[in-house]
């Protein structure tokens, strides 16, 4: 259990988890050069993500988890409602059931590859230059305890 999904508390926990990065177990499962690439991206990543839930129950859709990266850490992580201004480098959207599946352990790479999460706004080619960083970030978000 954890704070409610798409709550202020959950967003704060996500921000801390993203700043901390992948777990030691996740790091052990892949080559050090992969993580060197990941760390080099993370150190200078200047972009922001708005990760949407298109059909969040009980909320006017869509709502977004806004993540601003700066200096290798998450500088801002909060929930943006449908009436708030949506300004992010990359805006992505995913259905509630797919968010739930991600938290239940569905693979983050396949979440992208199977188009469960989709880029709605932002440069596609620039986004994919840092795709491993994004996928690992998505896996970290999926591991943050939350209540659906």
């Amino acid at each position, binding site marked *: 259990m954890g704070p409610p999904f798409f709550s202020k508390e959950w967003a704060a926990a996500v921000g801390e988890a993203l700043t901390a990065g992948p777990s030691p177990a996740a790091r052990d499962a*892949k*080559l050090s*050069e*992969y993580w060197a*690439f990941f760390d080099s991206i993370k150190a200078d990543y200047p972009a922001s993500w708005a990760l949407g839930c298109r059909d969040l129950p009980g909320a006017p859709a869509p709502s977004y988890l806004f993540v601003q990266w700066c200096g290798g850490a998450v500088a801002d992580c909060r929930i943006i409602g449908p009436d708030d201004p949506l300004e992010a480098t990359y805006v992505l959207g995913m259905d509630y059931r797919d968010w739930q599946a991600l938290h239940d352990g569905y*693979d983050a*790479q*396949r979440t*992208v*590859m*199977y*188009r469960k999460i*989709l*880029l709605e706004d932002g440069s*596609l*080619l*620039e*986004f*994919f*230059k840092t*795709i*491993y960083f994004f*996928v690992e970030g998505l896996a970290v978000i999926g591991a943050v305890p939350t209540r659906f």
Partner: protein
Amino acid sequence: MTQAERESFMAIASGFHHGERQVEVELPVFMIGATEEEKLHIAAQIEDEARHTVFFDRFYREVVGMQGDDIMDILDASFPWVSETFVAPFGLLAYQADEVRRNPFDERARVRYGTTYFLWIEGVLALSVMKVTLSYARWRGFLPAYYTGFTATCRDESRHVQGGMRYLQQAVSKDPTMINEIHDTLRTILSVSGVISRRIYYEPLGWTDDEVRVLFFQQLRRKLNDVGIDLAPDIEDLLARVQPQLAGG
């Protein structure tokens, strides 16, 4: 087969197993904005890719011994052999397919999609790496049904690549600025293709990393020659850092 041979073979075959599925499901949107002649070719290719997906499904059931109720069960079972970096070309293709779905007559988006699908995934990755398992099966005298079926698959892929290169060549011929779309797509692909998340050993199958890398370079040069374009100097630099990715279509 030795354990090392089996592990190397599984790593490569799993890339194809998932790659065939991906190129099958991401191709239909490309047909919307195509000419009538191209639509005939694409329709036939979708059928080919579906057969390739079934071929690998049967290989994993009947040869490897995986069990499942449906195609996705077998894909789930082979996925642990797929490298984490697989998402770069195939996630890009999925997102470019979505871009084409939203704007099916956007010729620039179609050229970017075609660069990832036909030039890189089919023309470079698939046509290079398929030689590894085929030559191994022939050299060792193993897996005769795989050899026969995958040889037929490769003939299909060669035809798809020819069609794809013709499409890109005509797109550049009609509008020379389309070369920028091809170059920009290759910049993205090559900027992440030098990264590996797990070590795949080609040696048990009779190849070295350098030999596979040479195959990549040869295929890329040939495909660029077919399209009638060169690489920009900065892309040449990126190319020098590329690792052989285990994936195909």
